[in-house]
């Protein structure tokens, strides 16, 4: 092959990669653009300070906002994260570091299956486990449902990042006479921490956007609530109910809520990146 032909091939291959990347990026920009155009007008001061209240507010054109949905999303998602992280990471450790254990293959099958399961089923599970047994819809049930969404993602990413940490690190620890659990917690996990945190962020972002599991558990609430044992509002479920409502003001607030949800996820990733970079900088020689 001539040199020119090789250059041409190189440029062609590069063009294909650029094209493929554009196919990924363009729809995302389109979504963001569309959401911002439709929702920006709803984002006023009251949007962040007022509750939604009863539909009569909307009909009378009185100020209404989604402060209760924003607060509820933060509360329910963080509680879910608190529940999911210990179980998710532990399961990941089991699958990577204790591969000879009889539970490891079971855990691997379960996490793969759960990863591919529609999130509404996690809602049904939390409904059966929590709502049925406690006698009512609650924020806690919503957190449990979202934790079920997060756990398999955290477990899977933890497993894969632990697996790519060099075996020599474990051997060095074992050769010092450290027990396996100490090698795992003090050496392997810290070495893989950036990947573990990234996995947690991905799980968090994924769960933060889920509406279906929350409809059956935390239900929704038109007013601000901090009580984990009662229904609480969240942005994804609120977007859904605003969208199917008959009021024009509520439709535009739904788009506004979508902007906030997008920002929430973007800020999560940004903060995560900053945390990871700070952790990494500490040990760069």
């Amino acid at each position, binding site marked *: 092959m001539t040199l020119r032909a090789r250059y041409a091939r190189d440029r062609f291959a590069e063009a294909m990669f650029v094209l493929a990347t554009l196919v990924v990026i363009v729809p995302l920009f389109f979504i963001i653009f569309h959401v911002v155009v439709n929702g920006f007008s709803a984002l006023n001061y009251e949007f962040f300070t007022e509750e939604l209240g009863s539909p009569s507010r909307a009909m009378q054109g009185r100020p209404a906002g989604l402060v209760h949905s924003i607060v509820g999303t933060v509360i329910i998602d963080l509680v879910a994260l608190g529940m999911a992280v210990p179980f998710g990471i532990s399961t990941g450790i089991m699958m990577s570091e204790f*591969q*000879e254990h009889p539970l490891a293959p079971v855990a691997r099958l379960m996490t793969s299956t759960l990863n591919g399961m529609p999130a509404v089923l996690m809602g049904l599970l939390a409904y059966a486990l929590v709502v049925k047994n406690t006698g009512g819809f609650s924020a806690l049930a919503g957190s449990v449902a979202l934790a079920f969404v997060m756990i398999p993602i955290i477990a899977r990413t933890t497993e894969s990042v632990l697996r790519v940490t060099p075996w*020599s*690190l474990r*051997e*060095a*620890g*074992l*050769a*010092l*006479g*450290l*027990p396996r659990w*100490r090698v795992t917690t*003090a*050496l392997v996990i*810290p*070495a893989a*921490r950036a990947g573990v945190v990234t996995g947690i962020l991905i799980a968090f972002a994924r769960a933060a956007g889920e509406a279906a599991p929350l409809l059956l558990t935390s239900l929704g609430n038109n007013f601000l609530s901090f009580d984990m044992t009662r229904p609480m509002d969240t942005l994804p479920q609120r977007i859904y109910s605003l969208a199917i409502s008959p009021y024009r003001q509520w439709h535009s607030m739904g788009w506004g809520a979508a902007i906030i949800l997008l920002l929430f996820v973007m800020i999560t990733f940004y903060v995560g990146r900053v945390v990871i970079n700070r952790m990494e900088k*500490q*040990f*760069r*020689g």
Partner: protein
Amino acid sequence: METSTQESIRLETKDLTVRYGVTTGVQNVSAQVYDKHVTALIGPSGCGKSTFLRALNRMHDLGADIDVSGQVFLDGENLYASSMDPVVVRRRVGMVFQKPTPFPTKSIYENVAAGLRLVGTRKKSVLDEVVERSLTDAALWDEVKDRLRSPGGSLSGGQQQRLCIARALAVDPEVLLMDEPTSSLDPMATRRIEELIQKLKDKVTIIIVTHNMQQASRVSDYTAFFYVGELIELSPTEQVFSNPKEARTKEYLSGEFS
């Protein structure tokens, strides 16, 4: 070197065999290692010398289909007895690897202290003392004493290897296994490690795997020649290099096969 019979045996293997699945890595090796001496293990690639070494502190335990049979006695105690905890074995028989393996997330100080701190020693005065003593023993103290808080990975390759030696010494092992500890180092760093080995043998019994025969003759008191998984000859180093008992040792040393 004719005094070998009077020296005390620290570690001894009896019919040690290591199998990987269906292949045999080490076969029926019975060897003696003398206290406070350096024993070098030499032989062509794949002869089983590293496999043998790793059997001495039960590093094969976690290998899925590695099977070790036979016995390893340390001060007369069988390290493969069912009552023996591999974690305890590895505290008594330390190991330094081919590539330096400083713990990437830990400082120089924490690297050395890891073997103690991670199993519960928290007292700062004890740790400080152990860290300084171990780094001094590993001939690294003067180079790092002003930057004990910098990451272990910020050191040069040779320094990292001495850091790993210090880390192994910190838990006060009786035997130190070294698996080609200089094969990734430049000649100057190699020389420093070799000098260090000479100094350390007053404190600890050393077994070193090396593919470099000059190194074996420089650092060791005894040399064991392995070939296709078997121990061919184990004699005082001088004798192995000047007048080997076995024809195969002689052929290997003269470069007739490798």
